[in-house]
């Protein structure tokens, strides 16, 4: 079976979808030269559906909204996570509300793709944000695939979805490779999580690339604790039913989330679990710290604020003991 990388899966999803649906087009900065490998080969195949933009994020994000209202299905690629904060208004307040405000007269099927979200070692404070929680908070459909097959399937579903969807692709996941047969690649519905590993003692809900870290920790602890790893795959809509079913089995919960702690996805999941699920022990979360501390350059500082395997091990042990 061929090994497919995460980036290649994104490229393949976009290529397949442009092949299938002539309304799909892609826009962004430097996409002709496929800086992020997502748009490789598209210019040759679809010369009039690759729109190389100037550095005008607010302009081209709203442009995509208009084009979507006019019947197209734009895929917007952004180079750096903070650019999504520059267009937060355009996505959450314009694109995501036009359907509601028009009582369904228009739909806005835009996909916003961020191939490289989160930590970039040494890149410093302005290039390593992990803003998925912000979009989920604002009610924008938010997806974060962990594996190449999920990247393919979720990206495809995002493009086909009739609402705005932000797809976050974690920087540390982009070069992951996986055995996938092309024939098995398929769309994956938004809002459906995946039990990546079954277990009996504790559920670890892991987000994005942290799924792989959680799997490694689960393996490491196998003799001691039976860990179930659950990947929600999309943060909004969130697979509450899937999580509840897992917690029903294990009775314990740890969230492993690369977002900031305060008002983050971890906080939300813990709150909901506390309110609505049957827990045998107080849940825990491993996240980035409060506030936007991403330091950069010196690896010790950089790593100090990243959620780590060691923290996860400690959290699992604490939850299981209590």
């Amino acid at each position, binding site marked *: 079976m061929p090994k497919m990388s995460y980036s290649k899966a994104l490229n393949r999803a976009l290529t397949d979808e442009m092949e299938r649906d002539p309304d799909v087009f892609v826009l962004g900065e430097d996409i002709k030269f496929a800086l992020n490998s997502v748009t490789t080969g598209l210019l040759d195949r679809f010369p009039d559906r690759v*729109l190389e*933009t*100037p550095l*005008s994020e*607010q*302009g*081209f*994000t*709203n*442009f*995509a*909204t*208009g*084009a*979507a*209202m*006019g*019947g*197209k299905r*734009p895929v917007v690629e952004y180079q750096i996570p903070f650019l999504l904060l520059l267009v937060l*208004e*355009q996505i959450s*307040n*314009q694109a995501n*509300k*036009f*359907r*509601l*405000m*028009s*009582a*369904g*007269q*228009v*739909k806005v*099927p835009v996909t916003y793709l961020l191939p490289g979200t989160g930590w970039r070692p040494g890149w410093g404070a302005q290039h390593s944000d992990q803003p998925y929680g912000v979009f989920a908070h604002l*009610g924008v*459909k938010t997806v974060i695939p962990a594996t190449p097959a999920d990247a393919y399937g979720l990206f495809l579903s995002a493009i086909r*979805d*009739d*609402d705005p969807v932000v797809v976050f692709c974690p920087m540390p996941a982009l070069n992951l490779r996986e055995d996938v047969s092309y024939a098995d690649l398929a769309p994956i519905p*938004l*809002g459906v999580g995946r039990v990546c590993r079954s277990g009996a003692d504790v559920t670890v809900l892991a987000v994005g690339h942290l799924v792989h870290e959680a799997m490694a920790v689960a393996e490491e602890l196998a003799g001691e604790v039976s860990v179930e790893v659950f990947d929600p795959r999309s943060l*909004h*809509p969130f697979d*509450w*039913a899937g999580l*509840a079913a897992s917690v029903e089995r294990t009775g314990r919960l740890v969230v492993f989330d690369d977002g900031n702690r305060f008002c983050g996805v971890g906080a939300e999941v813990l709150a*909901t679990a506390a*309110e*609505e699920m049957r827990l045998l022990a107080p849940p825990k979360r491993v996240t980035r710290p409060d506030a936007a501390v991403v330091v950069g350059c010196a690896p010790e500082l950089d790593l100090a604020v990243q959620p780590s395997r060691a923290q996860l091990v400690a959290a699992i042990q604490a939850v299981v003991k209590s």
Partner: protein
Amino acid sequence: MRLIRRFEERCIDLVRSGDIGSGIHPCIGQEGVAAGLCAALRPDDALLSNHRGHGHFLARGSDPGRFLAELTGRVGGIDSGRAGSFHPSDLSAGIWGASGTVGHGAAIATGLGWALARDGDRVAVSVFGDGAVTQGALLESFNLASLWQVPVVFVCENNGYATTLPAPAGIAGSVVGRAEAFGIPASTVDGQDPEVVFDAMAAAVDRARGGGGPSLLEFTTYRFEGHHTFERRMRLAYRDDDEVARWRERDPLAIQAARVPADVRDAIDAEVEEVLDAAVRFALESPRPDPADAFDHLYATPVRLRGSLFGGLGAAAALDGAGRIFR
């Protein structure tokens, strides 16, 4: 124009009576721009409006009763009461919404114009005020529209003020200068005379439809009323009475009325009153929305929300539903 004027006067009454909760941004005094520019459009052309947009809707033929029902938040409204006065849209009348973020709708119109041009020869129009031209995002739209030769007409209704800020105190250089810097032909035109507006607009629309790309028209105009109906209570002193009186002498209704025989005018006036009486009746008789429908239209592909949103997770049952907003 008479319809727009009297419609908004009726709206002001409905604001006073509490039937229009938000208040409105009246375009009284600016009707000549709305009437002239909409008359130059084909029914299938697309217009994106702004917060002072009532005139655009009526000039494009939106139904006054359903529009008024929208402003009063009723089910019979053009947007089922979801949009109110600030964000209405009426695709049947060629109005594709009104962005509340001043100046940013221009890029949406640019994208829309680009999309429409790929499948035909429809033109998009973006209407904004003088306050919008100080938004950087507007300039990004000019750049994209010009680079990609999008069939979009940018219309600036320069009524002299952005809320209380006089245009010269906010705008360095000029409105047309901004467009010209991007290679977009632009001109400043008298907005009080609807026929002058029509001629300028027809030329810009022809140009766009013929593949000539974007253009900008700055219509000089004036709002006789306050920025928003709240101003009637506030007595803000940012413009003097003489100035208002001078502009009232150039009332677009009077300018156009002088071209219409008296009997035709009387007939129009009478018809407008009839239409508006019926519209107000329709609006106030239309039912108010059911709070249980608050989540309708939120997403095109419905999202499963937590049951607790609706008063406690009746647990398993609510979690089992597939692909629906829980009730």
